[in-house]
């Protein structure tokens, strides 16, 4: 108990003093995860929307796979990206392994199915409801799609926040492709893993508290956004 209290006190001190090492790690975490979210969103929203409104053979299989990929284990994603980016791999020549770029790629792959699957569901529900009305009013498919996406923007934002939460909290993928190099690829989750095994509980706890707070805030924001939108727009 003594140790934990000590660690908590030291963690508080680190956070209060904006310890440069701590700030650097948190900063890189946010940079990597936010980049991944931007990339994944740009790919996943059109993908999810396209699956939602199109009819093709094997559509149900695609949906099942997409939903299953939401639970993709981060270490497996890390392993695959590692194989692709390693010296002997097909993309080895680019020299991306153990860089923040590699981490962004891995997290993008990890959260793309999450955002796409949630977006697919939201768009499909809305499309079922709006389709006839929009066509009746003479909206072409492009215009109808824009109207739809704008109308469910809060649901889509929730999907994006879910992706961000997942990216910020995962450790397996960034550990494997980033290598947890001090000052280069060390992020919150990999630092926590390392510092804990080294016995530096203060830094690990401080980072843990920040991470949990961040995830909490994200979820609270997603919830409140949806609630507010529901109240305002029905």
């Amino acid at each position: 108990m003594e140790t934990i209290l000590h660690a908590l006190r030291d963690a508080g001190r680190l956070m209060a003093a904006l310890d440069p090492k701590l700030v650097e790690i948190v900063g890189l975490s946010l940079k990597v995860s936010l980049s991944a979210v931007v990339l994944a969103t740009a790919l996943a929203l059109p993908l999810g929307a396209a699956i939602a409104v199109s009819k093709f053979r094997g559509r149900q299989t695609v949906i099942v796979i997409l939903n299953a990929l939401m639970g993709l284990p981060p270490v497996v994603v890390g392993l695959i990206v590692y194989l692709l980016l390693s010296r002997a791999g097909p993309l080895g020549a680019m020299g991306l392994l153990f860089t923040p770029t590699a981490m962004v790629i891995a997290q993008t792959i990890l959260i793309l199915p999450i955002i796409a699957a949630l977006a697919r569901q939201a768009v499909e529900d809305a499309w079922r409801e709006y389709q006839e009305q929009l066509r009746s009013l003479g909206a072409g498919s492009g215009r109808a799609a824009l109207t739809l996406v704008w109308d469910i923007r809060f649901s889509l934002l929730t999907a994006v926040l879910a992706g961000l939460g997942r990216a910020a909290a995962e450790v397996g993928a960034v550990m494997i492709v980033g290598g947890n190099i001090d000052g280069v690829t060390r992020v919150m989750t990999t630092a926590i893993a390392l510092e804990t095994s080294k016995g530096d509980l203060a830094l690990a706890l401080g980072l843990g508290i920040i991470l949990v707070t961040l995830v909490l805030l994200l979820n609270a924001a997603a919830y409140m956004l949806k609630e507010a939108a529901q109240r305002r727009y029905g």
Partner: protein
Amino acid sequence: MGDEPMRAPVSILPLRLEEVSFIAGGRPIVDRVSLELEAGPRTIILGPNGAGKSVLMRLCHGLLAPTSGRIEWAAPERPGERRRQAMVFQRPVMLRRSAIANVEYALGLAGALAVERAQQARAALESVGLAHLAERSARVLSGGEQQRLALARAWALRPEVLFLDEPTASLDPGASVEVERIIQAIRDAGTKIVMCTHNLGQARRLGDEILFLNQGRLAERAPVERFFNAPASAEAQAFIKGELPWT
């Protein structure tokens, strides 16, 4: 709604259906229907559940394509042009924006000038008695208010034909009366009404002629009075007899 409807020179009516069928799951929902709808008389489509009323209306409105047969307007629609027909569904679908913005959206799709939309939308809301709720979010309105808003949205487009798919089926009596009044006003302003309903009283009040569908076939077409007093087909006789106690 004072000003003259914006009319293109040639009317889109009559609408002509030739041997139109719609088959789903191997079953004919609409079965070789041929008819012509002219401007003027209010047409009510009657028939038991599953007779194909809604599907026939969707075929006419272009939301479904017939499996076989031909559907022709006197002035054919061209994609990208303003639609000269509108439809009001049983359950109104409103976008997540204000009541007036929903009407303005429809006007925008119909190619109304941006500067005129607000004024036209407000006039449409006034004519259905919703002007005081213009800024309210459409989806928080009551069922009756949303249906009136749907009518305002359709009316604002000044359609030559308005299709109504059981517009009062999910409304309470008070709201139904109001909706019937608005339908009457839309007709008085020169729009052809084509409506399906379950309510025989409503069919009498709002209709000039009845199209009676049974199992996808057009079993009878007659003026309202004759249909109710002396139905020619055995199916229509049975239907009226069976339905009357509940109207």
